[in-house]
């Protein structure tokens, strides 16, 4: 999967979790850029990503991702 394809999939997950069809994420996107991305919604997002890509993050990874770019790196690493 290319990085571009990955971000397209990520956009779909974000739009579904946050119920907002306008969301487009990029490498630098953080929780500050998206309405409703608080600590409670973060774990829902993580689980939706896990379901989408058939992967699993440990809690350490969940709490140390700095932005969507870091999230993408982890996903690509796990689906190799």
């Amino acid at each position: 999967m290319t990085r571009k394809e990955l971000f397209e999939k990520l956009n779909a997950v974000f739009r579904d979790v946050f119920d907002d069809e306008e969301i487009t994420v990029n490498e630098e996107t953080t929780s500050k850029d998206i309405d409703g991305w608080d600590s409670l919604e973060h774990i829902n997002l993580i689980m939706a990503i896990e379901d989408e890509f058939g992967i699993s993050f440990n809690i350490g990874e969940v709490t140390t991702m700095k932005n969507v770019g870091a999230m993408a790196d982890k996903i690509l690493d796990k689906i190799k």
Partner: protein
Amino acid sequence: MNILSLQFIVLMCVTAAVYQIFPQRLRWTVLTAADVVYVLLVQDLMLTAVMAVQITVTFAAACLLDSQNSGRTALQKKHIMAAAVSFNAAVMILFKEINFFLYPVRLILRAAGTGVSIPFIHWNAPAGLSYYSLIFIAYILDVYWGVSQAERNPGKMLLFAAFFPILTSGPFIRYRDISESLYAGNSITYHSMTYGLQRILWGLFKSLVISNRLGVLVGTIYADPAGYPGAYEFLAFVSFVLQLYTNFSGCIDIIIGISQIFGIEMPENFDSPFYSLSISEFWRRWHMTLGLWLKDYVLYPLLKSKRFRELGKNAKKKYGKRWGKQAPLFAGLMITWFLIGFWHGGGWNYIWGCGIYYGILIILGEMCGPALQRVNERLGINSSSRGWITFQRIRTFLIFTAGLSFFRSYDGLICGLKRWGYALSVWNPGIFINGSIFKLGMDKYDIAVLIVSLLILWIIDMIGHKRSVRDMLAEQNIVIRWGLLLALIFVVIIFGQYGSTYNASSFIYGKF
């Protein structure tokens, strides 16, 4: 040993002097030695042995779990992690919360008419047990998850494990965040010394000038609820919130200030909580490191567990997408809030007043938030107007106060309920103008000092809500800078309540 005792101050000064003359690469050993001295001074050898066993178990487990140690299977590592976490949790529960578990046993024995009674158990616990046990659990899990390396030097591990300022009242630190500055051996500079002392001074002001005065008033009313009904009770409820805030955050200021002198950056534990617009925001600004700990090491693991995911999937199938998200979240929040209350003590006054009461309110906020927003829009309320924001802040403060009134009812939850009965039994707001409040252990002079001090606190918090007060102070010329600091020093010396009448054990969070 209280953080304001002469013993502690001497230990601090000697540590700082020796630390400064040591070569940088060995300075951490001075802090480790100070840890050992502190621990040996505050408790007997038996309690020190308990602490030593916990440190040893944690140290060994982390070394075995470290990603560099590839000689073990994933299952073996899981077992090691579970055993070390369980051990630390068990020791903490055994010493601090044993009566909670004995309570139902007592009830069963009494109902069965056995005549056997189990006495209330009060064991002395190792210093800082509730703090360092949770810090150890976080450390073990971080190493297990691969986001932290294990500390392989036993001396450095000892420094992290028993860093003496933290043993008094926290905050909850993480090895991965603090290890660099903890072992760096940073020199004590003019900057670190003045910044550290400023922070300590501010903590002393909050604790000695404000909190101790409020403690007199709260203690008088809480000691005799029948004698002080109605408005007195409400005065005590509000005063206790301010007492707890100034006491706990003052203590944390002192701990952070001490650490800053040595160039060690501690996490903040408070962020102007009384400016919060909702209870969930309040708890992101109050005792922040405990909240973060529970989110990362309890709530998230629960929500990611197989059972909770199944709960979400079933709820989604039956009730739709929204409940698919909310059902596991609410269950996880209730468990987490129960544990927050439980950590404060095995009594239901803590479990309710500092736990599930707020859990219920946050869940209600999550459930009703969208509907309330629609109501506001229909009523044409401008949610960003100053009036509405002020209303939300006052509402949040009062909701928090109501919960904390139970927390302060050390005689138990039922006594907390009775206290509300007394509070609502009489309409006597006249006590605020007929001089009655001057008969609560404080004269007019003390009350005037208290009011002015609270105003200063409010103004500083208001400025601090927007930018760093100390950076602002640093920008001033030397006359203003030192003039303000000397004024604060004199205020603490002249108006601080200490000496023979001062109760050195009065740091409320020192007992948890």
